[in-house]
């Protein structure tokens, strides 16, 4: 029987609240004895996704909630981000590969997306009940 530890955080769409995200990831990393590198990678990917949602996802000025679930199994951490922002399929979004083209000319917005796709082992997106549900898996 697979046992899974779970932690969840709900933050509102205010960029200053990203600090809570950092504390949340650090707390989970300590509790689950994750390496510094895994912890940093999860923190980075969450910052990129959540800031993207907060900056570009909402067309009104209302308060919205973004929910983050972390689940740890033996050899991986699963991350689920649920929001009610505009449809955004990260898998279909513009990325850039780390190729020869001068990074100076690249659209910087694509960098965060590139981090998500590169640093995570699995990325799945679905739209359900007018919510974006992004599932990520990081092997540990």
């Amino acid at each position, binding site marked *: 029987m697979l046992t899974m530890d779970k932690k969840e955080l709900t933050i509102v769409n205010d960029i200053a609240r990203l600090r809570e995200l950092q504390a949340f990831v650090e707390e989970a990393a300590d509790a689950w004895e994750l390496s510094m590198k895994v912890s*940093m990678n999860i923190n980075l990917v969450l910052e990129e996704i959540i800031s993207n949602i907060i900056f570009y996802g909402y067309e009104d000025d209302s308060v919205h909630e973004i929910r983050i679930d972390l689940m740890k199994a033996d050899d991986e951490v699963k991350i689920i981000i649920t929001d009610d922002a505009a449809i955004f399929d990260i898998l279909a979004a513009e990325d*850039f590969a780390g190729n020869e083209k*001068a990074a*100076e000319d690249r659209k*910087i917005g694509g*960098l965060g997306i590139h981090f998500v796709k590169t640093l995570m082992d699995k990325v799945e997106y679905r739209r359900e009940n007018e919510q974006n549900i992004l599932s990520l898996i990081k092997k540990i």
Partner: protein
Amino acid sequence: MNITESKAGEINIVSIEGRLDTTNYGELEHHLSSLTDNDEVQILLDLSQLEYISSSGLRILLMFLKKIKAAEGRFMLCSMSNDIKEIFEISGFINIFEIFDDQEAALK
């Protein structure tokens, strides 16, 4: 994030300690602008105490690289940890910055 500054000849050494992310990149921007606005365009960024960088932090570094190059200055980085270096590699930024192992190598 803590930012400290020192000077070695013409080179301004700026050391960053802690995290450089979406919530605080403005502090570094402000600090570097105060140098470039005074035509101080020989800058070495010591990243030995940098624990975390996100795309917002990288974006600021890229902005100053362009600005300093345009002013015919030099913007160098040194002493990054392996975890930070990996982020530079994945982003492709490893190839566009002058990166040194330590201050000594950069100042040579």
